[in-house]
């Protein structure tokens, strides 16, 4: 990874909250990597891209590393409230022990759960999605976006349900794309009417019920209708679903599915 960017900042030293605490320090913000971002091969790349941007923008952050555990979102959406709350309380204990106040995550499911479902259980943090942090950095002038390789490219953006409808975050990712001087093209179902990728509600972890089509294929078709050259996602699960969809349509070579963080990192040549 670092070898291909030999002259770039060393990005692979990722501070952990524990190590910082041992040194008597506290990060401004904790990066909640999430299970997909930690273990899924495709999503790991998103994590790395985001870390590169954080490092470049000099953000004081840290990850929990092995002290992080599933937020419990897929358990709750499957109906296992017990397992969800076990996970939640364990995570809250860890976060509270480190006196964490701000959390950023690249996964809308973690984002939603931490932000909306943890407070009642004793976990009160300011939780933001990585596209929101990137937008903040942009406003603060810490992140300077130039089109780079994305200048003039047609990009369509897929709204993750748990970012869009669930939490009304529609504009942050779009602002970022527009700042790259890319041409944002909308799908026929977008924003509050955005069509699901098919992964939510724990569908990611099971076979779909009997039907006449897979949801990710339907959504991929809508994306292809826009004639976009790049499909932008903001969720590791949407990313997987759409990547599979594009593969199914045999368009992998022409139309990449990328997270907003990856697009920005690439445009910055990080």
């Amino acid at each position, binding site marked *: 990874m670092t070898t291909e960017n030999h002259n770039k900042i060393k990005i692979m030293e*990722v501070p*952990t909250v524990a190590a910082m605490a041992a040194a008597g320090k506290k990060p401004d913000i904790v990066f909640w*990597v999430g*299970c997909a*971002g*930690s*273990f*899924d091969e495709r999503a*790991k790349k998103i994590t*790395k891209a985001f870390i590169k941007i954080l490092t470049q923008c000099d953000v004081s952050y840290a*990850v929990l590393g*092995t002290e*992080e*555990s*599933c937020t419990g979102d*897929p*358990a709750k*959406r*499957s*109906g*296992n*409230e*017990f*397992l969800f*709350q*076990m*996970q939640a*309380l*364990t995570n809250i*204990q860890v976060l509270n022990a480190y006196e964490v106040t701000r959390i950023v995550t690249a996964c809308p499911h973690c984002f*939603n759960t931490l*932000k*909306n*479902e943890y407070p009642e259980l004793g976990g009160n943090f300011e939780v933001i999605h990585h596209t929101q942090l990137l937008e903040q950095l942009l406003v603060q002038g810490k992140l300077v976006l130039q089109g780079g390789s994305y200048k003039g490219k047609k990009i369509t953006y897929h709204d993750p*349900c748990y970012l869009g*409808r*669930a*939490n*009304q975050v529609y504009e942050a990712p779009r602002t970022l794309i527009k700042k790259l001087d890319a041409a944002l093209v909308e799908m026929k179902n977008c924003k509050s*009417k*955005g*069509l*699901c990728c*098919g992964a*939510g*509600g*724990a569908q*990611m*972890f*099971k*076979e*779909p*019920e*009997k*039907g*006449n*089509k897979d*949801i990710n294929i*339907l*959504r991929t078709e809508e994306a292809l209708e826009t004639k976009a050259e790049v499909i932008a996602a903001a969720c590791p699960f949407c990313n997987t679903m759409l990547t599979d969809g594009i593969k199914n349509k045999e368009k992998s070579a022409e139309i990449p599915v990328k997270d907003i963080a990856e697009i920005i990192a690439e445009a910055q040549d990080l």
Partner: protein
Amino acid sequence: MSYLPNVLFGLLLVGAIVFFIKNLNRIRKNILLGRHIDRSDQKSERWKNMARIALGQSKMVRRPIAGILHIIVYVGFLFINIELLEIVLDGLLGTHRIFAPVLGGFYDFLIAAFEWFALGVLLTVIVFWSRRNVLRIQRFWKAEMNGWPKWDADLILYFEIVLMTLFLAMNAADYALQLRGAADYIVAGSFPISKFLVPLFETITTPNLMVLERTFWWMHIVGILGFLNYLYYSKHLHILLAFPNTYFANLKPKGSFANNPMVSKEVKLMLDPNADPYAAPADDTATDFKFGAADVTDLNWVQLLNAYTCTECGRCTSQCPANLTGKKLSPRKIMMDTRDRLTEVGMHLEKSKSPSINDGKQLLGDYITPEELWACTSCNACVEACPVDIDPLSIIMDMRQYLVMEQSAAPAALNNMMSNIENNGAPWPFNNQDRLKWNQN
């Protein structure tokens, strides 16, 4: 003898209202069979929500064509109801156009406005009918609409066509009589629409025309009272319940699913090293308590109010990714099933006169199948689409909770996922110690 019509009218009116209130009470009772949920907070936010969504129809116009058409009928309906006040007073007091002398010139304006509204409603309703039956818009023809729901939707439209036609016919006959200077027909009102019907009555003698005018008048008011009482049996109930339903709707972000407080208690106990495992359970650990929902009485009262409010418009289903890809799940059906089961439970309770609802049936299994429930992606498209703020997703999630926590009946793949979370803190079988390994390669 001359008081007979007034008495008859009074009896009819009282009878219709009593019958209607009786049925409304049934609904109230059924809704209160639901579990407690507190929606007494944020009053001003709630009023605003109601004003915006129910009164202001803000979510209706997200589909501009249907939305604007609906507003024509809705506004027309509201305004023409002002005329109803006069009709009722006339009926009770034996007067004719009682407001005319009081309102003078303004009365003419009002009657003219009502006529325009009546025409607007009439034409719109015909468009609605064509959308259902000529254009056959898909969402009106899904499986759950077969039978009564389809009939119901059309019947409402026929009702409205007949009522508006009677209103105009009544005015036309009245106007014709005014022109002839018939006794008892004061010259009042302006009839921009019905005046075109007057020539139809040319050959009818004045006494016969008077009978005809009375007939239209009576049919119109009887029709309205009939329609009022039809509401209880119909999705048209939404014209009333949309208001409380939007008032009591969930105001939290849509992604925020309720945390089950019973579970919180248990989990806290488990994680607390000082907890006394033999401590007496709290009072609310009633013996018949179950996690999640298997029947309507396990749902909360707002979910039950939702079920009665559903207009069966199918906007939810037409946005549902599962339904769009041919899965059995239809959020509209979830709401219709909930309402039908609740009505059944209510009737059973009334008949058996016992507080138990053991009729050998329940919502889960007899109405809604696990296959439907497991097809949901929890995407909230249905909730977002609903013009009256109904939340089918919360019912789906409560029923999943029952399936998993009471019956351990999750699909095998989900059980795997959950045991992974339990064992290694991730939905996949990775060692938690490797969490930072993304860092290397």
